[in-house]
């Protein structure tokens, strides 16, 4: 049975969205992108450097992949809105990963500014995918603002700590059964991705876990499989957790 991932009216086969930052080379990035099976990649908006000829980074991306620009580096709604408008103009896309950071050490999101920016951008016709703290109430507000999906963090950006608060994700899944939830940031290893998917995430966005792996393309393959395994595990319906054992083999009839 095909298990398509629908996001803002677009159909994806892969539930893994990956980044383009921190790779050691363009070649390694390209190989990792292919291995991941991802159909959408994030890019950052940045000033063109003065006095230095630059090549187009986008030329290193597979043209079949959808480009999702982000508003990384923005610390308030105003900067994020301006960045989104620039990205739309340059790429001719309405899609934006909205990221408003509240603090340079933790890179934790400023949820209040994120919501404010989301409202403005939705009104301007953007497809806003907001990165935010894994909080149910905030998720509801972002969805009410018109975001087609919410992107709660698993752990701080680039930390590789894995899902720090599985209860929050589970509650979000149970309370918002129809919402599209994409876990964004904090995944470190394939088991983290599988856990997030088992908890009911619809997709995962990651960058550093693949880019900083010793063998990025191999890790991209592992992440692809983990996302698939976690998804299938979620759809299959897990067994209940029990405090005590439950024998798998019949106890009656064992020789005495």
């Amino acid at each position, binding site marked *: 049975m095909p298990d398509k991932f629908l996001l803002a009216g677009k159909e994806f086969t892969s539930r893994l969205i990956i980044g383009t930052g*921190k790779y050691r080379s363009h070649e390694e990035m390209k190989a990792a992108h292919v291995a991941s099976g991802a159909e959408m990649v994030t890019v950052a908006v940045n*000033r063109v450097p003065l006095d230095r000829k630059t090549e*187009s980074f986008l030329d290193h991306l597979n043209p079949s992949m959808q480009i999702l620009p982000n508003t990384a580096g923005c610390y308030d709604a105003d900067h994020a809105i301006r960045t989104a408008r620039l990205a739309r103009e340059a790429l001719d896309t309405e899609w934006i990963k909205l990221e408003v950071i509240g603090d340079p050490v933790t890179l934790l999101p400023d949820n209040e500014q994120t919501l404010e920016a989301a409202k403005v951008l939705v009104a301007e016709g953007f497809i806003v995918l907001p990165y935010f703290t894994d909080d149910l109430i905030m998720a509801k507000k972002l969805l009410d603002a018109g975001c087609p999906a919410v992107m709660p963090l698993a752990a701080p950006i680039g930390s590789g700590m894995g899902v720090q608060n599985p209860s929050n994700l589970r509650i979000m899944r149970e309370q918002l059964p129809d919402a599209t939830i994409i876990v964004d940031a904090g995944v470190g290893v394939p088991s983290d991705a599988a856990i997030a998917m088992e908890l009911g995430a619809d997709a995962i966005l990651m960058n550093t876990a693949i880019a900083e792996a010793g063998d990025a393309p191999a890790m991209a393959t592992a992440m692809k499989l983990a996302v698939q395994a976690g998804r299938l595990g979620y759809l299959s319906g897990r067994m209940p957790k029990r405090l005590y054992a439950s024998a798998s083999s019949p106890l009656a009839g064992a020789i005495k």
Partner: protein
Amino acid sequence: MSPLLTRGLVQRIRLREYRDMTIFINGEARKLDGVSTLASLLDALDFPKQRVAIELNKQVIRKQDWDSTDVADNDTIEVVHFVGGG
């Protein structure tokens, strides 16, 4: 018109013609000569024109308007492109 006044006017016009414009571009103050429009600014800076976007005094200027949008002294301009990110 007196010769003195005429000379003064000519000087003022010349000063205007040759005075460098100071533009704040991507966070740096730049004195630019011979720049009139946003399109000529990109040329002067040897910037790419594909898949970039320009903000002039915090307003995005559509690509089709780069040729007709004048740059003025003390303008603040952001020219962005895309880099790797997550």
